[in-house]
């Protein structure tokens, strides 16, 4: 089946021949589209299986967020508040691990001028025990993160009505972009230190492993 434009409510296939994927729903033995887009048929992984039909969500410039954060998805956050036992952050972008290209493309990055109101961004909380895997009791949060840092984290819970719960335990999670006290950009020097690109002064951070 070629990629064709579908509208919500349009019948795509029967449940006897296809498996419903994302962007579809089932009604009376039929698979119908749920969103506006193009239908994509993924071949079956083995001979006895059925192909999966889905309507993937295209990342347009207008769409501010393509999907909600779910448990297991990686997110890019900006630290908004640092307390003694936890810190608050705003979710800027979502990396879906099930997508075929896990790297974030340039069009997926939300610019700061578009969504800077924290009331319009999903908030998340990073607890002190979830910052790293070892020596959890000796963590000083101010040595790990500062306000304004861009961190990569993973969602571990939907949380309560306001906040998602995230974790940066793992080598690939931590600070990816930071600004020094002098206001310059910093580059990662080691897993726990970042250096000012201009003055060379080092600051302590929980640094993500560069990919």
């Amino acid at each position, binding site marked *: 089946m070629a990629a064709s434009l579908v509208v919500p*409510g349009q019948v795509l296939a029967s449940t006897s021949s296809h498996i419903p994927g994302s962007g579809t729903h089932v009604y009376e033995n039929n698979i119908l589209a749920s969103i506006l887009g193009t239908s994509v048929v993924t071949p079956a992984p083995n001979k006895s299986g059925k192909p999966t039909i889905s309507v993937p969500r295209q990342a347009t410039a207008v769409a501010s967020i393509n999907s909600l954060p779910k448990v297991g998805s990686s997110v890019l956050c900006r630290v908004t508040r640092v307390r003694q036992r936890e810190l608050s952050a705003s979710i800027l972008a979502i990396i879906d691990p099930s997508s075929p290209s896990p790297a974030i493309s340039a069009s997926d990055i939300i610019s700061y001028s578009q969504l800077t109101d924290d009331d319009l961004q999903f908030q998340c909380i990073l607890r002190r025990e979830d910052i790293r895997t070892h020596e959890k009791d000796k963590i000083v949060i101010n040595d790990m993160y500062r306000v304004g840092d861009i961190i990569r984290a993973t969602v571990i819970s939907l949380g309560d*009505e306001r906040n998602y719960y995230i974790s940066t335990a793992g080598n690939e999670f931590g600070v990816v972009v930071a600004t020094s006290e002098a206001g310059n950009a910093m580059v990662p020097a080691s897993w726990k230190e970042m250096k000012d690109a201009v003055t060379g002064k080092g600051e302590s951070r929980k640094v993500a492993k560069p990919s």
Partner: protein
Amino acid sequence: MSDRRRINGPAGTTSPPVFAPYSQTATATALRQRVRKPNELRKIFLQTGIVPSASGSAYLELESPPEPRLSLVPTSSTIKLSCSVHGPKPLPRTASFSPNAQLSAAVKFAPFATRVRQGYVPSQTEKDLGLHLENALKGVLLPDRWPKSAVDVAVTVLEGEDDQGEGDRFAGLGLFNLLAAAINVAMAALADAKIDCLDLLAAGVGAVVPGPDSKPLRVLDPAAVEHDDIRSSCVVGYLPSRDEIVELWSNGSVSTQNANTSIGFDEMVDAAIAAARGAQTVIKEALVESMTRNQMAGKKPSQGETNDVEMKT
């Protein structure tokens, strides 16, 4: 009068001008008769993606052919609506945890939307329209796809359809036409925002008016200025692929006691459903056209010319 957040007018009372009727009233009334067939809809213009800062947006016009101006009072039957969808976004601070998306809808008249100027305080008519619109959109949404998030739908009435004679009150048929147009434009905006829906929800209005032999006649998409006497009217929100009604609002009365007349409430609802089916084809074509335009914009970024969009019937 004592609003401290707006520029107030004169302290004394002012009233809008009331125009005297023209001497050729009978001719003007005769020219306002319906020239369309009973099953013909008015022309619908619908375009999505007009507000860049919104997740989804749409603009709808429901227009009648221009008629000769015989009086100073412009009695038009044009409806112009703009809708923007914001979300999925975080819940308000007062809301509790919910595994479903929380949809809220509001309809607001612009001050210049009617002949008599509307105020800024939401009136009861706007609240009624907002509640009915919210009830219709909740029937089409798949809320469990977006846990603990909110979706805000805001419909702005840029030009409302005037009722007969009076220009200050929205009731009856003009209200139903406005609700049907609001449901259609909100559905287009929701689809533009890529929020999961069951179907393309479409709304239509049907009415029972006196026919040529004083018998009841069913009409689709009635306009308030085109009929002197409207016995009953109703508006439905309809899901065509499921054949379900998610919103129904009627007024007036259709008598079924007379054996000669065979038009009852069910036939009037069928007329409104037929009008909704016609509106759904317009919504579908507008969405496919916007998808095609987005794909062309993605493929050819150098093409910067703006194409005019033609009216569709």
